[in-house]
């Protein structure tokens, strides 16, 4: 994590010049320098933690062929641009910026540093030297939905949601559709908290949803507060981002875990091979980028089997989280039977399926 001064760059260039046979360029001689920009602390047990696990996978896989740098707690916005620019200046050749709000700052820096390769998570803007990547979180939501359909006695789930962006909307719909395959009358009550992270509000939201009849809580916010509220009330919930069972050993049914490592290893290999090119990757469970954490023992064996079946169908392609027919919550048919929604439709999703109250 050294800060590279101009003098040390000159020095390493000189070193490379004296050893012209070692590599094709000054940088190829040393380990590949990779940087990660994180939104939260590594210890958030959610989003950033998962990215950090991905970086650990990289280190395990490539050993001393790479050298990684991280910057934690980088606020989205102008501060991010400064951090990313510094990382580029310090000679990092591949920079992963791991939050949606880093998109524009990354793009700006990418335009200035044409030789540096950038990888931005969950965004939609790209450049010649800036790729974007995301995971099909909704596939995991479908597995949660199958479990919820079986486990919920009231047939009502509460869903704590952050912001109505397509990624969140996909999750709500996939969850509800899967639950309705088990219980056709299943309803999802969505509560928007307008924040990714506000533990007190998330806990109070969980309580409000429970008071309104939900007996199982799903969330698209980052803290384990809602799980704790369910634990206290003796109900059930799903973790977010990573296994959160330590906060709620009884309530925590399972969680979607983001295994970014598989993507990171592939992309770093591409840089090492010289085959890296920009583009958009939207990987799913079949690529191993998403996993379900260990199922709670309170889930009966047949329900676990049903959940595994949903997962297996998504992985082998025989089932899709958005198989038709799909009717929206205004009664309009969005998709006829016999097909599934295209990625283009998913990226623009701004409507809710039947049974979602938002």
């Amino acid at each position, binding site marked *: 994590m050294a800060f590279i001064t101009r003098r040390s760059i000159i020095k390493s260039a000189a070193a490379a010049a004296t050893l012209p046979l070692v590599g094709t360029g000054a940088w190829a001689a040393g380990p590949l320098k990779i940087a990660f920009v994180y939104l939260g*602390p590594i210890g958030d047990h959610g989003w950033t933690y998962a990215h950090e696990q991905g970086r650990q996978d990289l280190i395990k896989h490539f050993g001393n062929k790479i050298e990684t740098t991280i910057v934690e707690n980088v606020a989205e916005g102008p501060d991010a641009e400064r951090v990313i620019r510094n990382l580029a200046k310090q000679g990092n050749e591949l920079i992963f910026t791991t939050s949606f709000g880093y998109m524009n700052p990354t793009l700006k820096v990418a335009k200035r540093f044409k030789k540096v390769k950038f990888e931005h998570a969950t965004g939609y803007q790209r450049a010649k030297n800036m790729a974007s990547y995301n995971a099909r979180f909704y596939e995991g939501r479908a597995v949660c939905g199958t479990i919820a359909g079986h486990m919920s006695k009231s047939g009502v789930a509460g869903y704590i949601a952050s912001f109505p962006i397509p990624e969140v909307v996909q999750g709500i719909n996939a969850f509800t559709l899967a639950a309705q395959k088990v219980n056709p009358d299943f309803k999802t*009550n969505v509560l928007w908290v307008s924040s990714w*992270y506000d*533990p007190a509000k998330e806990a*109070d*939201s969980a309580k409000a949803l429970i*008071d*309104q009849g939900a007996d199982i809580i799903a969330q698209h916010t980052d803290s384990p*507060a809602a799980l704790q509220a369910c634990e206290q009330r003796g109900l059930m919930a799903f973790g977010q981002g990573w296994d959160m069972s330590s*906060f709620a050993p009884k309530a925590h049914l399972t969680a979607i875990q983001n295994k970014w490592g598989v993507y990171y290893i592939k992309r770093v290999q591409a840089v090492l091979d010289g085959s890296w090119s920009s583009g958009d990757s939207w990987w799913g469970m079949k690529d191993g980028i998403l996993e379900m954490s260990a199922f709670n023992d309170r889930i009966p064996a047949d329900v676990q089997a049903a959940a595994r079946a949903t997962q297996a169908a998504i992985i082998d392609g025989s089932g899709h989280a958005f198989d038709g027919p799909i009717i929206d919550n205004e009664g309009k048919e969005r998709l006829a039977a016999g097909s599934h929604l295209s990625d283009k439709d998913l990226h623009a999703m701004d409507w809710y399926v039947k049974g979602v109250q938002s």
Partner: protein
Amino acid sequence: MNETIFISILMTVVGASTPILLAALGELVVEKSGVLNLGVEGMMLIGAVTGFAVTSVSGSPLLGVLAAMIAGTLAAMIFGYLTLSLTANQVATGLALTIFGIGLSSLVGEGYVGKTVDIFDSIFPAALAEHSFLRVLFGYSPVVYFSIFMTVAVAWFLKSTRPGLILRAVGESDSSAHSIGYSVIGVRYAAVAFGGAMAGIAGCYYSLVLTPMWAEQLTAGRGWIALALVVFAAWRPGRLLLGAYLFGAVMTFELHAKAAGFSLVAPEFLAAMPYLATILVLALISLRKSSGSQAPASLAKPFKPST
């Protein structure tokens, strides 16, 4: 709406209101002495992490609360030394204290992320605390009863005791108080310390009662609501209690209304309500300046004894 829902909504309101009330009570006393400490959020976070860490190590939530109060006081003393002894700008120092608190608490809390402690729950027997109706009176953490007690105590202290009058005198006219022999700096130190202790306990209410865990910026800006509340209440403890429960109710009803499917107004509007209400009250106060219920006259003015 049946009565079970009503009771649980009521209990959620109490839960949301208590920490704001505690922090605002402390800040009210601080401001009554003529000092503006904008570091409430920072002191709350320091209290939250200390309370959690001590409880998690010792297993005693009471010890945790005590430690949170001490930690809050220590943080406030830094502010006190800079603004009272060195007469630094109070606004800038207070903001710095918040930033410091955010950083320090995440540093200290690093090893505690992902852990949990037993909730600091009602000390009443389960027959009362979990009774379907009586829990509305007995189902709270001791901190909740403490907050009500402190409201009464602060009101009484400011209105009817000699030290309370001295404190107000210092806040209204520091030079007069000084000229008749009161230690302006001493009184303000005591007030700032009290404010720190209250912010500390308010912070640990989050990490021990509401969401028994530690995570960075756990209080998520509630310290600013507490600051707004002091102004909203026009520096009166009675109104502060009402205001805290009103703010708590707005925050809770927002969620319940949405969960029940009403959407009369945009959720963003409801979330902004406490601040809008405060601006409104500020405007009203300044319109009727003569009534004498406005800010302490020496608020945020540094005092240098002319000896």
